[in-house]
C-alpha cells in the first residue's frame, strides 16, 4: 500500500525531534499529576468521613477525560495551523505543487501526520487513564469511546486548522483564526443559545405581565447549534457512560425543545456532523491550495 509521501515525511520529521519527546512527557506528566491528585482526594477525603464512596471514583475518569479533550482542543490547532503556511514560509509549497501530488493529498498528508502525532499522545496516556479501572465503574468500551471522541475532535479541529493554514499567508494569522474558531465553537455556540434564551425569557416575562399566561422560554432547534460544540459532545458521552443521560437531555430541553431524535442520539449525531464538517473544511482547503483554481482577483505578482 502506498503511504502518502507528505504524511510519511512529516511524521519522520516530527517524531524524531526532541520537541515531540518533551510534548509526550509533559502531556502525560500533567495527566498523571491531576489524575493521581483526584485519586488521592477521592480516597483520603472520603476515608476521613468514615468510608469511601466508590461513586466518587468516576470523578477521576471525568477529570482525566475532560483534561484529555481540552488538551486535544488546545494542541491540535498548534499542530495544524502552521502546516501549509509553514510550507509557504519555507518556500517549499510551490515545489510540492509542481509535483504529481494533488492538493488533497498534501492536505490529507498534513492532517494525517498531525492526527498521528496526537494519537501518539492519546495512546501514550492510556496507562494513566487506566487509573479509573483500579476501582471499577468504567468499562473498556467507555475508554474506547473516549479515544474515538478525541480522534473525531482532533480531525474536526485539525481540518479547521488546515483550512485556515491554506487560506492565510502567515502562520500567525492561521493560528489566531483557528484558535478563534475553536473558542467560537465552544463558548460562542453556548453564548448564542444563552443569549437567545434570555431574549425569549424577557419576551415571555412581558407576555406574562400583560396576559397572565406563562410559557417557559424555548430556543427550539437553535439548541442544535451545540452539536458542533466538542465540549457538549463530551458531556453527552460522559453522562451516557455514567447512566445520567436523562440529566443531560433534561438540561438541554430546559433551554430548547429541539428535535427529540437528535437530542436522544446527541453523541452519534454530533460525531457525524463534526466529521461531515471536517470533510467540508478538508475539501475547501484542497480547493484553495489548487494553484489553477479560478480566482476573482489576482493577488500575487512577479
Amino acid at each position, binding site marked *: 500500500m502506498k503511504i502518502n509521501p507528505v504524511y510519511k515525511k512529516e511524521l519522520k520529521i516530527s517524531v524524531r525531534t526532541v520537541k515531540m519527546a518533551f510534548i509526550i512527557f509533559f502531556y502525560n506528566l500533567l495527566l498523571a499529576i491531576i489524575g493521581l491528585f483526584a485519586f488521592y482526594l477521592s480516597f483520603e477525603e472520603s476515608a476521613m468521613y468514615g468510608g469511601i464512596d466508590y461513586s466518587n471514583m468516576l470523578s477521576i475518569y471525568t477529570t482525566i477525560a475532560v483534561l484529555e479533550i481540552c488538551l486535544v482542543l488546545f494542541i491540535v490547532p498548534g499542530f495544524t495551523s502552521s502546516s501549509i503556511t509553514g510550507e509557504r514560509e519555507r518556500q517549499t509549497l*510551490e515545489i510540492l*505543487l509542481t*509535483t*504529481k501530488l*494533488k492538493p488533497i493529498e498534501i492536505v490529507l498528508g498534513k492532517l494525517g501526520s498531525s492526527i498521528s502525532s496526537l494519537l501518539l499522545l492519546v495512546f501514550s496516556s492510556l496507562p494513566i487513564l487506566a487509573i479509573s479501572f483500579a476501582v471499577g465503574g468504567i468499562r473498556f468500551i467507555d475508554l474506547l469511546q473516549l479515544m474515538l471522541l478525541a480522534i473525531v475532535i482532533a480531525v474536526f479541529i485539525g481540518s479547521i486548522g488546515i483550512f485556515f493554514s491554506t487560506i492565510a499567508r502567515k502562520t500567525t494569522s492561521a493560528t489566531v483564526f483557528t484558535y478563534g474558531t475553536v473558542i467560537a465553537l465552544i463558548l460562542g455556540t453556548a453564548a448564542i443559545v444563552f443569549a437567545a434564551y434570555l431574549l425569549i425569557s424577557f419576551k415571555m416575562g412581558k407576555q406574562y405581565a400583560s396576559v397572565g399566561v406563562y410559557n417557559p422560554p424555548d430556543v427550539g432547534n437553535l439548541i442544535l447549534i451545540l452539536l458542533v460544540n466538542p465540549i457538549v459532545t463530551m458531556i453527552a458521552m460522559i453522562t451516557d457512560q455514567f447512566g445520567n443521560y436523562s440529566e443531560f437531555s433534561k438540561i438541554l430541553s430546559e433551554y430548547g425543545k429541539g428535535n427529540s431524535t437528535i437530542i436522544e442520539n446527541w453523541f452519534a449525531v454530533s460525531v457525524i456532523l463534526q466529521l461531515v464538517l471536517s470533510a467540508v473544511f478538508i475539501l475547501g482547503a484542497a480547493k484553495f491550495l489548487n494553484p489553477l*483554481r479560478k480566482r476573482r482577483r*489576482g493577488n*500575487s*505578482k512577479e
Partner: protein
Amino acid sequence: MLDLENVHKNYGKVTALDGLNITISKGEIFGFVGPNGAGKTTAMKIISGLLLPDSGRVKVAGVDALKENHVLKEKIGYIPDFFGVYDNLKVNEYMEFFGSIYGMEGEKAKKLSLELLELVNLSDKAEQYVDHLSRGMKQKLCLARSLLHNPELLILDEPASGLDPRARYEMKEILKNLRQLGKTILISSHILPELAQMCTNIGVIDKGKMVMTGTVDHIFHEMESANPLVIRFTRNHERALEILKENPLADNIAIRNKSISITFKGNEEEEARLLSTFIQEGVMVSSFTREEGSLESLFMQITAKEEAEFT
C-alpha cells in the same frame, strides 16, 4: 517541446504578460532574459502549472498545460528562484521524499537518488542535513530533485542568482551535461554572458512581450550592428564629419579627440562602402572598427527602445 501562444496575464490593473509567444524545440537550452518585473517568473509559473493565464494557450510536450495539469507535472521539472528545501531532512531523505511522490520506493529510489546526486556532484553529501549545505549546493540539490521523474522540460528561474563564480560555473557545466542527455531547458537569468555561453536560443522579454528572440548567433549579429562604429582619423576629419552627416545609415555622431563614434545601421558591405568614400575624399583613416559590445548593452538598447516606444 514548449509552445506559448498569445498568453495574457494581468494582476489587477498591472499587465504582467501581454500576448507572450515562446516556441522552444526539443533539446534546446532557451535563455529567457528580461529586467525585473518583465514577466519572466509569471511566464515560468504559467508553464509550470502554478498560475492560470487570463487567456492564451500553453502546450508542453504536446500536453495542454491548462487542461491536463496532472500530465503536465510528469513532463516538467521546476526550480524556483529560491531554495525550496527542507532543512530538517538529510540530503538522501530529501531526494527519497520527492522520489516517493513519483512512486519510487526502496532500493530503486535510493539508487536513482545517488545517481542524480553524483550528476550534480553532491554524492558525498548524501548523509548531511540539507541545513548544512551551502547556497550553491542547495541549488544543485534542487536541480537533482527536479530530475527524479526524468522530466522532458526543465524550467529554471534564475538558478545562478546569489551563487559564487565557482558554483555558477558548476551549474553551467551541469546544464550543458543535461542538454547532452537530451533535456530541453528553459532558463531565466540576469547574467547574460553566461546565458550566451550555454544557451542555444535566447528570448528577450520586456513588459510582458517578447521583444527579440533567436539563436545566440542571431542575437550576436544584432548586437554587432547595434554597437558603435569607431573611426580614427589622422587628417581631414572635418570632411569625414560632413560625409557621415550625409550618410542616412549613420546616427548618433560623437566626436572623441581624433576619432568619431557613430551608430551605423549598415551591414559589412555598407561599412566597406563608407570606408572607401573616406579614402576617395582624401580622409586619412587609421582605424575603422566596431566597438566591443556585450549582450547586456544589446539588452539595454532593446529595452530602452521599448521604453521610448511605450512613452
